[in-house]
Structure formats: C-alpha cells, structure tokens
C-alpha cells in the first residue's frame, strides 16, 4: 500500500530524538522563570533583606555603624517630622482616593456615551497619566507660583479672591495644592479603567432596568455600580498603593516644605537617607511603610475576593 510506504518514509525523515528535558513541564517552567527569578531576586528580595539589616544598624554613607537593634525605629517614632509625614501620607492617600474615584467615575460615565470625536477625547484625557509626572508637576508648580500664578489671576478675575494666595508657601495650602495635582494626575487612570469596566456591562441590563421603571440614578445604583465594583476595587488598590508611596510629586512641588510640613514617607526617607546621608535611618523610614502597605494589600485582596466570589 502506498500509504504504508510513505509512513515508513516519514520515520526516516524524523529528527533524531534530542534531549527532551524541556518537554517536561517542570523543567521548562524552571527555565522560563529563571531570568525573572534572578532579576527579581537580585533587585527586590536582596534589597529588601539588605534594607531590613540596614535599618537595624547605624550606617552612614561610607561609614559602617554596626548593629543597633531597633534604635532607628525608636528614633523616628519620636521624631515629630516623621509623625507629621505619617499623618500627611494617610491624609494625602485618603483625600485623593475619594476624589479620584468620584471624579474618575463621573468622567467614565460621561465617556461611556456615544458622541463625535470620542476616540480623540479619550486619548487626550489620558495625557496627564502618560506624561512624566515630574515634568507635568513642574507645569503645576509654575502655575502655582506665588508671583506669576495663572490660577491666582483667574480666581481674581472671577472675583473669588482679592489678594494673592501663596499656594506653596503656606503649610495647609501646600498640602492642598499637592492633593490637587495628584487628583489631576490620577483621574484619567480611574476614568479609563472604569470605562473599560463599564463597557463590559451589557446595555441591555440598563434597558431592562429602564423598562422596569428605574430612574437613571436608581439604574446606576442598582445595576451599574454593583457590576462595576470588582474593577473599582482593583483600581483603588493600585491607586492607594501608588499614592501612599508617592515621591516625585511632593519632591518637585515643595520638597517636603515649607518647614517640613508636607513630607510623605518617601520624601522624608530621601531627605534623611540620601540628603543627609543617614542611610540606616532613611532605610528605617521607608521600611516603616511596609506594614501599612502590607495591611492595605491584604485588606483589599480579601475584599476583592469577597466581592468576586459572592
């Protein structure tokens, strides 16, 4: 039979059995994960261990200080600037997240309609998120400049103020200014992510609810929002962590000032660890973020799991 002849022919052409190690899923997985494991091990796990050790000793730049136990943590705990920084970080994270969520959701709902030029609007709206934060923050710093502020000019022309506002010179106003810029930068991320979530919700559900007689607000509250909740939770998780550990925005806007009033964990750690050269103390300050971050991640992950499985 012809078919049999060809079959024999095939076997002759087959390549010699090579080493089949990579046919074993376990070895293949090991090989594929190796580069990632090396890089993450070297530049995440190792620094983490090193950071813990550093925070337990008294090193300065170029000077090894020996083991001092929890002295650094004790010191920062009694440091009023550090306490202010902790408070600032929570205030900053909390306020911006609420606003970003509210405004982002609103914008997402607006963008979820059909209108001309929607693709362009959507693309343009993401710009604050794309453009390097440091660079766009400089634009804001310039807009907040006490002498040349276009914001002051606008508020004055609108009749809302009579004198100048020293945005970055007053501790409370400086924090508010920073919060405004963070919200400005974060809203696009919320809006686009939530928009993607909204687009997975079938319009038929809205229509069914409308036919059932639900008013727009009720439709949102009983149909859209519950379905959007899982996405929202993940977006909030990412945003909270990024905001909590923020550095560049404050570094550019105020550098932690005026009078150390606007420090966050990260900027204070930078000032102490790199600026002053007290490596160990700086490491202790940034590591102090870790328990909070861990707590945030655990709480959110548990909550996300609950939302997703119910």
């Amino acid at each position, binding site marked *: 039979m012809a078919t049999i002849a*060809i*079959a024999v022919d*095939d076997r002759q052409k087959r390549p010699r059995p090579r080493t089949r190690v990579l046919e074993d899923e376990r070895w293949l997985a090991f090989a594929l994960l190796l580069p990632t494991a090396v890089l993450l091990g070297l530049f995440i796990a190792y620094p983490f261990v090193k950071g813990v050790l550093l925070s337990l000793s008294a090193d300065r730049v170029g000077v090894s200080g020996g083991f001092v136990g929890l002295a650094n943590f004790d010191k920062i705990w009694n440091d009023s600037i550090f306490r202010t920084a902790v408070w600032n970080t929570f205030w900053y994270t909390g306020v911006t997240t609420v606003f970003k969520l509210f405004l982002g959701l609103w914008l997402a709902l607006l963008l979820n309609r059909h209108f001309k030029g929607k693709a362009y609007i959507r693309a343009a709206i993401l710009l604050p998120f794309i453009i390097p934060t440091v660079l766009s923050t400089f634009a804001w710093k310039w807009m907040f400049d006490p002498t040349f502020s276009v914001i002051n000019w606008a508020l004055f022309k609108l009749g809302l103020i009579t004198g100048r506002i020293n945005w970055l010179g007053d501790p409370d106003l400086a924090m508010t200014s920073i919060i405004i810029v963070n919200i400005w930068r974060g809203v696009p991320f919320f809006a686009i992510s939530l928009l993607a979530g909204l687009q997975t919700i079938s319009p038929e559900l809205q229509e069914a609810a409308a036919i059932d007689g639900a008013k727009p607000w009720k439709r949102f509250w009983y149909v859209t929002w519950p379905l959007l909740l899982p996405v929202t939770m993940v977006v909030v998780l990412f945003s909270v962590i990024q905001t909590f550990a923020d550095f560049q925005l404050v570094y550019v806007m105020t550098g932690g000032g005026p009078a150390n009033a606007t420090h966050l964990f990260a900027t204070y750690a930078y000032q102490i660890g790199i600026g002053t050269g007290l490596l160990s103390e700086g490491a202790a300050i940034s590591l102090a973020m870790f328990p909070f971050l861990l707590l945030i991640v655990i709480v959110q992950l548990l909550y996300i799991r609950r939302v997703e499985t119910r």
Partner: protein
Amino acid sequence: MAQVVIRDLNKKFDEVHAVKNVNLHIKDKEFMVFVGPSGCGKTTTLRMVAGLESITSGEVLINDTVVNELPPMDRDIAMVFQNYALYPHMSVYDNMAFGLKMRKFERAEIAKRVQEAADILDIGQLLKRKPRQLSGGQRQRVALGRAIVRHPQVFLFDEPLSNLDAKLRVQMRVELKKLHNRLGTTAIYVTHDQVEAMTLGDRVVVMKDGVVQQVGAPLELYNQPANRFVAGFIGSPAMNFATVSLAEHDGAVWVEGPDFRIRPPQSSAGRLRGHAGRQVVLGIRPEDLRVANGSDPADLGFDAVVEVTEQLGSEILLDVKAGPASMVASVEPTVPAKVGDRLRLALNPDRLHFFDTQTEAAI
C-alpha cells in the same frame, strides 16, 4: 501496521477517577469511535493516546511501541480538534505545512503534499487565506487537511463536527467516511453523538463514568446492547424501558407489567427462566412497536393512550402512556392517531431486551 493497544489504562485527576481500567485493541486501518455522555472519559482517553495528558497507570502502545513517556511530537499522530485549532496568524497553506516544516521536510515535498491534500478536500482556492476569512465548513476542511498532509500513523478526532450546523455535519460525516476509505489510516474518533458513532465507526466503544460499557460493531451495539445504558444511549428515539416482573405459569414465562401481560417467544424464554419470580427491566425500541391489527396475538400487545404526536414526515412518534409507564412508538405516517386516542400497540417479540434491575446487564 499502525494498531493502537490500550492496556489497563487509568487516569486520576486530583479527586476524580476519570478513566478506569480501559483495555482496547484498535486494529490497523480501523475507524474506532468513542461515544458517551460528557464526562465519560472518552476525550481523556483520546488525549492520553495523543500524549497531551499524562497516564496515571497502564500502557498505550502505538504500533507495538509503548508511548507512555513519548511527547506528542514523537508519536507520529495527527489530531483534529473540536474548535479546529487553526493557527490564526498563518495562512491556510502554512497551517497545513506547519507539521511538515517541524519535521524538516523538503520545501518541494511540503508543497506537493499540501497540494495533494488540498485537492482531496477541495480547498485549493483557499490556500492563501487566513483562518478568520473562512466559513465553519472550510475551517473544518483545513483542519482535516492539516492532519492528512502528515500521513500519520493514527488520526485522532476530538468531536470534530460538533461546531458545524446540522446540515453541514451530515455532509462532512459522509466526507470523513470517504476519506477514511481512501486513506485507510487508523482513526480514533470521539463524539457524544450516537448517530455519528453509528454511521462512522467500524467499531464503537461506549463509555460511561470512565468505564468501557461495550465495544462492538454499530449494529451489534444496536441489536445486542450489553446493558441498559448502552441500550438507552444507542438509537434515536431512545429505547423504552419498563419495570416488569417475570412469572412462570404452565411451563411458559410471562412478562407482567402493571397494565399488560405478554408472553415472550421461546427464543428468549430460556434466558429469562432463571429470573422467574423477580423484577427485570424490559426494553423495547420505538421502531419495534406498531399499532396492532386484528391478526396480532393477544399476548404480544398492550393498550395505551396517546399523549403527544410528533409528525416527522417519514414516521410518526407517538408518546403514549401504558398504565404508569411512558413510552414512545414510531409508527407508519398513515396511522391516524390523535391526542387522547386509546389504541392497542403490538410489539415485535424477537426484539425484546431484558436487563437485570440491579446490575443493569442484559439478560
């Protein structure tokens, strides 16, 4: 040449024992069909033959070689998947050539074989297209073409027709049959559709819960089902079942139902005698029931009330109630039965099936 032998094959997923002690001998050039409801282990068995699933215990031999440890690439088999699994980024030609390229065939030989397969399947004009530009039937042909260019030892089919619409499915079924007659390659074909199994298979394996229920030629399964499951699974509409008791009176065995009493012919009486005085399950296919006429003996029929009539054109399906038992009878299209009619049905005495109530095995 290319026979497939399966010995004491077992597959355990974490908790589930999916395939239990399967033993099969698929002969060279045979078209073997695995059929059963979903989750019966037929696909898992096929995937173990393909090398896509590891074997928990037992052996698979292709061409007298144990292939348990051989990766799929070295088994010299071809497989057609339910969703066709065409490589979306490659043209039809490249899809068909891929297996040959992987095996380092000469360019000219690849072109020749692809052309040959394309001619057989009549897809020569599609070779430059991408899979997304093809209709369902065309994709199916390309998937087949990809398998046949390889001239493999064994073809494996995993429900290849179930994504097609009903009409195309019948057409492709015929083509598959022709293709097999022409190429003569050993084939294992998995389906949940008993019609496909009956029409395509040289032999059919019926599986349920990981256990082989019966292996045999299609008509063998139809005429002599090994147990109640096979009897009910093969044939459409499905076989009617009724629990009856067997009684022995005056040296004859009687089948006594709740509302009827029939006397099976001598041929089956011998087998039934051992079960006298016990309950058994009587099975009768709808096509072995007909409306009785005056000449039918009284003890081979029963009275029934028509509940639903289904006009199929070539026949009428009568859903009837005989006492507490519901039955379906397939009768001549000329029978003027209406819902609510009371009529007498006669059964074909040579085609009665009996099953043990406990083991469900045929008696």
